[in-house]
């Protein structure tokens, strides 16, 4: 038993300081992404979420260029992009996609320039890799409080606006008639989403953070019909994928080809996808359907 455990959890895992920071920061960020992401899926804003995630690359690479903690680059650009998207018409579905596309295109152009300068002018080797694919194991301990505070902020927005968000994603007219400030609610949510993907950009990378936003939520949809439970599942699936991913990355240190460990982001994203596939299995679907039938006949 101990032997088996030792095989799965290589010695030194929990004693390692970067691993502990990664487990803590990665876990918190995954929880926030999962919870926020459930509403992204409910509201049909996956494209906006993906755009905000990708744009993190612009902020992150810019931050490296001027020597600032990349977290502020990610968050700063995310919030700014959310503001611009809101301003040029994210309200109507089509205007929303167009606005998102325009901002995304412009932002990624800048990212190309910044990443080029990072690599050539300031000679920050590794900047590209860590901006695009994350830096879970090199998060400095001093950054953790900020990560926690921003996470708490994004979570608080979603918890506070839980009902207005849900109702306005069912029908904006119904929500308005019920007294919901639909526009303000949407703006607040967009900002929370920007913060969530910015944090995930720090851990698993700007272009992979979409996976933590959408994947767990898409998986949770299959597991329950209860909104609250789905939100919870989504958060937990994100955390599970992240923690398992960290473990596998640690274990992979002696794996071929380079015997230097595989990237943790690869494991996290692959696990998210694997969970999604498992949830699509007919057997899992049958459980859901049987529950629905039971509810129907059993009253």
């Amino acid at each position: 038993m101990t032997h088996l455990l030792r095989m799965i959890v290589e010695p030194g895992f929990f004693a390692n300081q970067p691993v502990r920071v990664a487990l803590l920061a990665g876990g918190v960020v995954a929880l926030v992404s999962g919870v926020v992401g459930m509403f992204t899926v409910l509201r049909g804003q996956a494209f906006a979420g993906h755009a905000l995630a990708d744009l993190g690359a612009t902020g992150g690479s810019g931050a490296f260029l001027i020597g600032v903690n990349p977290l502020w680059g990610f968050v700063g650009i995310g919030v700014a992009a959310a503001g611009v998207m809101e301003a040029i018409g994210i309200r109507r579905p089509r205007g929303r996609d167009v606005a998102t596309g325009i901002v995304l295109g412009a932002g990624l152009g800048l990212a190309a320039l910044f990443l080029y300068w990072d690599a050539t002018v300031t000679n920050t080797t590794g900047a590209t890799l860590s901006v695009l694919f994350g830096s879970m194991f090199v998060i400095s301990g001093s950054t953790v409080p900020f990560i926690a505070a921003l996470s708490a902020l994004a979570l608080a927005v979603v918890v506070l606006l839980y009902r207005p968000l849900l109702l306005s994603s069912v029908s904006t007219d119904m929500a308005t008639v019920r007294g919901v400030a639909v526009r303000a609610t949407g703006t607040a949510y967009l900002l929370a989403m920007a913060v969530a993907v910015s944090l995930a950009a720090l851990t698993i990378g700007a272009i992979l953070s979409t996976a933590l936003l959408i994947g767990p939520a898409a998986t949770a949809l299959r597991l329950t019909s209860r909104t609250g439970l789905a939100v919870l599942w989504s958060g937990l699936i994100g955390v599970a994928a992240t923690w398992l991913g960290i473990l596998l990355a640690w274990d992979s240190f002696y794996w071929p080809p380079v015997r230097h460990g595989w990237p943790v982001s690869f494991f996290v994203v692959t696990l998210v996808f694997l969970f999604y596939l498992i949830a699509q299995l007919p057997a899992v679907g049958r459980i859901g359907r049987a529950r629905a039938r039971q509810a129907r006949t059993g009253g």
Partner: protein
Amino acid sequence: MTMAQQVTGDADMLAVDGVSVRLGGREVLRDVGFAIRAGEFVGLIGSNGAGKTTLLRVILGLQQPSSGTVRIDGAGHSRHSPAIGYVPQKVLLDPDMPVRARDLVGLGLDGHRLGIPLPSRGRGQLIDEMLRAVGAAEFGNERVGNLSGGEQQRVLIAHALISRPRLLLLDEPLANLDIRSEQEIVELLASIAREQRISVLISAHEMNPLLPVMDRVVYLAAGRAASGTTDEVVRTDVLSKLYGQHVDVIHLHGRILVVAGRGEGPAETIGDDGAHCDARAAADWR
């Protein structure tokens, strides 16, 4: 009986007076006026594009009229009036979205509140009661997106009624329903209006399913309205004036057909989806 009947009386639950709406330079509603008393069941009848949805949006405060006033229960209008329950034409929920019927009904109670709804016995009982009242108890735990059109309408009606409004507005609730669900929904609404003295304003492009239960009709055509009892409004002279062209009103086995044209060439009916079809096809109407 005038085109824009003047509104009167303090007992009116809803009073619409001289409402005009211009949207993008086009006059969608012109000097529309009518009133609904407590417990009255009123049909808002007109073809697609006649301005039914716009009128409902003005009453709800979702659309600002260019002129005219709307008074609800004698009071001036605010954007969110607790006296109004609203059932939209449709909701945007895919079948796989985890929102159950009872969740949506619960949001009718406190969807505007901040924070997560705490499971309380009182809230749960109220939701169960409402689901039973609209005949939706057996699918209360199913996802809204998985329900049939008729089942969804029941859930939306429960959502609107749970906050105990005194005026219920419904936007084309009978569209896309099969005949049986259509009758069931009409009967449900009629009994709600009767038993709870809730005023009901229901829009429809087809008036026949509503004939047995309607107290009065507001007929919209080309942005103008005529209101009164069915016999007062759905007449050849009144509707011809409203449409600005000659139309015939034909009674057939207890149903009413509104037919355009004066007999030269094939007659056309006005109504269903704004489409024009010949009188023979119209005879097949429900």
